């Protein structure tokens, strides 16, 4: 993994010293319903931020808006100083999903490689561009090793376990050395050991590359110790701050508009109880 300085060293101009993502007064409407509004958020290089909240509160929608996949009803979102747009090369994205079907017989290595040159039209000339082909192969191999997936990268991805697939998808998102990593529930389909391992991996990547990480999570506990800040979404509004500031009975009660209690277990994990609609947001014992 590259150190912080060289990762950011190639880019110049807008966004070099400013925030990676700037959301100002943003609102999204889908199918006539306002998902959220008055959202303000700044994401700085190297930050690890979790997006939390009950189902349907618009966590994935926020990621998609930052990716430029959804139009805004109001406000603005800029990524590295430019308006959010589809196909921004400095964003690595792992969408929400269960897994690849078992009959997807394509090597994990090829899935990672698509992150590097899957958007390119045409085919590389086999002999003329040998140098570039080799450097691409090395980049793919490096990123596969950095996520610890070298042992199974040549097997069909459909045959791999959820944790192995998730590591390869994170490698695919990382292979272009993005400055923002947007991960939509990357831990959700994993068992508790893999959750911790993948969370640690992401934390390490953010530290080593200087990339900012936005991670949508159903359960905050596996990542609680690694987090810089949280974005808590509920009732069409958001609260942003450190976990100690936001995940409190007072802040969440205000956000939900009804009494909510945050309990702290002796092992440091937190459980939110009493809010309407969703009961398992912070269940640390659901596995």
């Amino acid at each position, binding site marked *: 993994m590259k150190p912080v300085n060289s990762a950011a060293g190639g880019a110049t101009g807008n966004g070099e010293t400013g925030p990676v993502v700037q959301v100002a007064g943003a609102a999204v409407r889908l199918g006539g319903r306002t998902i959220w509004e008055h959202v303000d958020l700044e994401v700085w290089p190297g930050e690890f931020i979790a997006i939390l909240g009950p189902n349907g509160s618009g966590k994935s929608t926020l990621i998609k808006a930052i990716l430029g996949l959804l139009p805004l009803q109001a406000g603005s979102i800029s990524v590295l100083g430019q308006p959010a747009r589809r196909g921004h090369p400095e964003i690595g*994205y792992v*969408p929400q999903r269960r897994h690849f079907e078992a009959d997807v017989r394509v090597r994990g290595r090829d899935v990672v490689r698509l992150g590097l040159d899957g958007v390119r039209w045409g085919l590389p000339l086999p002999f003329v561009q040998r140098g570039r082909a080799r450097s691409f192969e090395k980049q793919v191999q490096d990123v596969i090793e950095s996520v610890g997936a070298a042992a199974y990268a040549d097997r069909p991805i459909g045959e791999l376990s959820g944790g192995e697939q998730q590591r390869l998808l994170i490698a695919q998102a990382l292979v272009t050395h993005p400055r923002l990593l947007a991960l939509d529930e990357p831990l959700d389909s994993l068992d508790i050991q893999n959750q911790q391992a993948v969370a640690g991996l992401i934390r390490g990547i953010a530290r080593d590359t200087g990339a900012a990480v936005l991670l949508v999570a159903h359960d905050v506990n596996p990542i609680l110790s690694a987090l810089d800040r949280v974005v808590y979404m509920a009732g069409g509004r958001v609260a942003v701050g450190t976990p100690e500031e936001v995940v409190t009975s007072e802040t969440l009660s205000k956000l939900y508009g009804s009494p909510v209690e945050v309990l702290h277990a002796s092992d440091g994990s937190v459980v939110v109880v009493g809010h309407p609609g969703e009961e398992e947001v912070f269940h640390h014992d659901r596995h």
Partner: protein
Amino acid sequence: MTAIDCCADGAQCASGSCSILQCAQNCSAQIQSHFISPFGYHFMQNAFLAGTLVAIMAGVLGYFMVLRSQSFAGHSLANVGFAGATGASLFGAPPILGLFAAGVAAACGIHYLGLGTRQTRQNDIAVGAIFTAAIALGFLFIRLAPKEFTVNIYDVLFGNVLGISDANVLITAISAAVLLSLLVVSARPLLFASVDPDVAAARGVPVRALGLGFLILLALTVAVAVQVVGVLLIFSLLVTPAATARYLTPHPALAVGMAVLLAILFTWCGLAVGFYTPYPVGFFITSFAFGTYLLVRGAKLLMARSQRTRLANSVLA
């Protein structure tokens, strides 16, 4: 008769003083006196030429079709194509044109109604109803067609690879050139969109446009492949080689190459056997394809089982 026999017949060959080429000429002269070469006939030259081109197109496109789980869409295009082929005969237009036109219409329908993959049961029923109506319509068109334009229903259903005209060989060659050049341009984004549509869309790949473009190329391939294997046996070139290749390697470029090689092999073997026997070529192409598929799947199953046994033994030991 083997090459060694041939060579042994010639005194110079036996003494080792002649070239391989001379021996080969000797061989072919002897073989020709015993067998009739299929390449001596113009219709067989056309059959091999068109068959090879169709096999290349079907192998490449079949790989993506199987990867995208769109075999169902390919099946739909072929069935609707039946009505197109017979409908064209009403106006004296070539069946291949009707096949392509109907295929493109069906491709647009499948795309915009979102019926391409993961159909719900409701969609299955709707699409099934449309297929049946299309085939019934094709049946009616055959009766309605003026006598001088009548198409042979067997040719549309099972193909007539031995009756391909020079003009159709040319059409097939142009189709193959168009298809391959478009695929060379779009191969990587299409692979990305097929394997991982969400990420591809976020990265700026026009996933929906590629999906429609792919279905239209599939319609083109179906239209020309019907000449060789007909509407009913089209999967022997479109699905079976690609499905077999996928079991042989998980490497995308290699799998495409293998699918093409297998499709060519099945077509050539089918043509060769069909030439020397009185039975239809389409039957042999399909049987070779199916037999190979069974062999590969069976071998894979056995390998997986023996691997499990070995693993279990090593755990016990």
